[in-house]
Every structure is written in structure tokens, then in C-alpha cells.
């Protein structure tokens, strides 16, 4: 009996490469012994996710990912490490006293994600998705109509965090 080997399409190959890259980077974030390297692998993993967004033709999400996560949050992390650790001596162990609880948490999260994947009725056929411009406009519209309370609440939260940071950092 001949074994049927599924030949992946180009898109699938690209997806596999990007997914493997993302997963490998994610793993390296956890097991790297140098905190700075961990941060850089995190940037790599975020890039992988952005690439997968591009593959799914969600350019807005991809650019948003690069802009917010890589351009701002990861920069902040790298910055914090540079300011606080000894430059090259920052050897850290990937294990610490909460690693057991961490593993448990990760497992629970994984199971929850699996359950979520099973539960959601994924549409067989993709619906027509509004592209770019109308998508962004629609998103903005939703922010100031349906989700205005949540939007304002997030704004308030950020404001409080900002003031708190200033309070902590000012000269006394």
C-alpha cells in the first residue's frame, strides 16, 4: 500500500518555518542563561508572531504588534535590564523557587487554551473580512461606541499607572 505523503503548499511551508522559529525563540526566552539574551529572544518570538499575522493578511495587526510589542514594550524591557543588571555578568538561572508553581500555571493555561480551541465553532469558510482602511475605521468606531466604557477604563488605568510611576521615581 503506497503511503500518501501530503505535499505542503508554499503557504504551509512558510507557516511551519515561522511557527517553528517563534516556538524556538519562545523556548530560548525561558532557558537562556543570560537575561539580556532572553529579552532578545522575546523580540524574535514577537517578530515570528508578526510574520504569521502577515501570512494571514492581517497587516494591521502585524504592524501593531511590531509597533507596540517590539517597538515599545520589548525596548522597555531591554532598557530596564541594561539599567539594572551588571552589563555582562548578568548570568541568571532559569530555575528559581517558584518554578514548580510556574509550571503548574503554564499547564493550566495550556489546558484552558486547548479547551477554548475545541469549544469555539471555527467557521469552515472564511467570511469576507473588511480590508485595511475600513477595518481600521471600524475598529476606531467600535472603540468610541460599543466599547467606550472599556476604552475609557483602560485610559484611566494607564493614567493611574503613569502618576504612580512618577510618584515612585521623584526626588524626595
Amino acid at each position, binding site marked *: 500500500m503506497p503511503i500518501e505523503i501530503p505535499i505542503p503548499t508554499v503557504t504551509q511551508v512558510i507557516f511551519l518555518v515561522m511557527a517553528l522559529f517563534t516556538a524556538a525563540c519562545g523556548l530560548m526566552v525561558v532557558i537562556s542563561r543570560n537575561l539580556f*539574551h532572553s529579552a532578545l529572544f522575546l523580540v524574535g518570538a514577537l517578530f515570528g508572531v508578526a510574520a504569521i499575522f502577515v501570512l494571514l493578511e492581517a*497587516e*494591521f495587526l502585524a*504592524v*501593531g504588534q511590531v509597533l507596540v510589542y*517590539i517597538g515599545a514594550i520589548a525596548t522597555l524591557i*531591554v532598557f530596564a535590564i541594561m539599567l539594572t543588571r551588571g552589563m*555582562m555578568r548578568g548570568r541568571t538561572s532559569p530555575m528559581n523557587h517558584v518554578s514548580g508553581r510556574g509550571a503548574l500555571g503554564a499547564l493550566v493555561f495550556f489546558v484552558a487554551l486547548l479547551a477554548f480551541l475545541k469549544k469555539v465553532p471555527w467557521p469552515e469558510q472564511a467570511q469576507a473580512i473588511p480590508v485595511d*482602511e475600513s477595518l481600521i475605521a471600524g475598529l476606531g468606531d467600535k472603540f468610541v461606541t460599543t466599547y467606550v466604557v472599556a476604552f475609557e477604563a483602560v485610559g484611566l488605568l494607564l493614567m493611574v499607572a503613569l502618576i504612580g510611576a512618577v510618584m515612585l521615581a521623584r526626588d524626595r
Partner: protein
Amino acid sequence: MDWLNLIVFPILRTVVLFLVLLTGFAYLTWFERKLLARFHVRYGPNRAGKFGLLQPVADAVKAMFKEEIVPSHVDKPIYLVAPALALIPALIIWAVIPVAKDTPAIADVGIGFLWILAVAGLESYGLILAGWSSNNNYSLLGALRSSAQMISYELPLGLFLVSILILAGSFSLVELVDNPRAWWEWLWLWVAFPFFFICILAETNRSPFDLPETENELVAGYQTEYGGIKFSLFYMAEYINMITTSAIMATLFFGGWRGPFAEEIVWLGPVYLFIKVVVLLFLFVWVRASISRPRYDQLMRFGWKFLLPVGIVYMAITAVLAVLLK
């Protein structure tokens, strides 16, 4: 054949674009040295070739044949990757800039504006990594300064971009240039240009905001431990960034490829863009020759206490104008 449009043409365009940019970089160094010399009442490079025109070639050959030195105390993979990371954003930002009627450099994505902002956010990585991996206090200080400066000035830059976006009403840079603007829009845009230009100066680490490499206090900042072609890559990144940001400013504020007859004769578009870019580059050099470097705290205070509020007020007024007049 779809192949041709999907793979062959974009690659060809990319190669041409890179060649143009790298040549542009080489002759921008000559242009700057010549101009600075004129400002200083000197001659500038005049030995290699007519008017010193072969000077960039000589410099390139020299940089390439220099010995590759990797200091023993550096974090090697990051140390080697950092110069490339500094250069890449400067090159890829070009993808969305329109060079002629309906023709972007590489692709007309619907998110041109966000692309610019996102890639600008990546620019600080090359410098941060270089400074950290060099394992040298001067390098680290330079990198910290540069990243703090870039993050601070990205905020007002983003606010001004958002204001321009509100006026344009479209995320695509191609459409931005194609759509006609009312006279008051042009005037209101030009009000923002000086502030935008200041932000760009800080983003590109150009004088007077070249604090990351202040040679008299930090040796050469983040690039202290680099030599030969690796140093040249940082140099290249800085100058190509100048060209790129000039093209962006020409596109946003001065109509990009637009000019007399550019609509009918397509090849005039790149020519007009080139002229506008050269004028803006002259402005870069002029500023470098005329204005002295501020202190670091002055720089930060200016960014946070002046430019940021100006950006917010400008954005608010722009939104009101757009609602009332459009």
C-alpha cells in the same frame, strides 16, 4: 504570469532601490564634507578625482580592506548582528514611499503610516545592542542615551504623524500624495514642519542631537568598539536614515514626486523627489554647521516639556479643523 509580479519585479525593485540608496549614502558623505568645508571656509576633499568626487570610493575601499577586529571581551553574536540591525530599518522604511504617480518604491500597503512608525521604533535596537554587547562603559552610556533620546522624540513625532494622518484621511502614502489638498491644509502642515524636523534630527541622531556619540565625553558612544566595515555600517545607517527621513518629509510636507508635468511624464516624479530630498539634506548639513550641541538634560527637557505639549495641542487643533472644514 503571477510569478513575475509577485517575486521577480519586487526583487528587481529592491535591488535597484538598495543600489540607489548605497550610492546616495556614498555621495551624501561627499556632499556633507564639501558643504561643511564651505561653511568653515575650507576646500574639503579635493584630491581624489575632480572636486574630490572619487573620495567616497576611496573611503569605501579603505573600510572594506581594513582588518576585522573583534575585541575579546564582547558578546560576539550580538556584537556582529548589531551593525546590520542598525542599517536594516533605514532601508526597509523605503518600501512604502511613493516615487512616481501611483508607484510606491516596493509596495502600496494600506498601512503606510503605521509602517513608518513601526520601523522607526525598531531603529533604536541596533544602537542598544551595539552598546550592550561591546561591554564597555562608554558604549553602554552612549547606547542608553541614544535609546532614551529616540524613545522620547518618537512621541511627538508620532503625534505629528497622527495629525497629518487626520488631515489626509488615509493610511496609504501613495494616496496621500495623489489626493489633492486644500490650501489651508498645506499652510497648517507647514506650521508643523519645523517641529517635525527637530524630531527627525533627534531620531536620526544628527547634530545638534548627536549626544549618543559626543566624541569629547563618550569617545564615540555606542560605536567605540567597532572598526572597519562594521563601523562603516553604522555610518551608513546614519546617512541612509538621513536620506530616508528626507524622503518621508518631502512626501508628507512637500508633495513627494509632485511637480510641473509630473502627472503626464512619469519619470519626472523621481527627479522631483530627488531634488526635494537634496534640498532637505542641505538643511540637515546646514543645521550641523550652525547649531551647537545641547546638554543632555536640556535635550530631554525640550522633548518632554516643549515638543510633546506642542504635538498634543497641534493634534487637537488639527482634529477640530478636519471636522469643521472637510
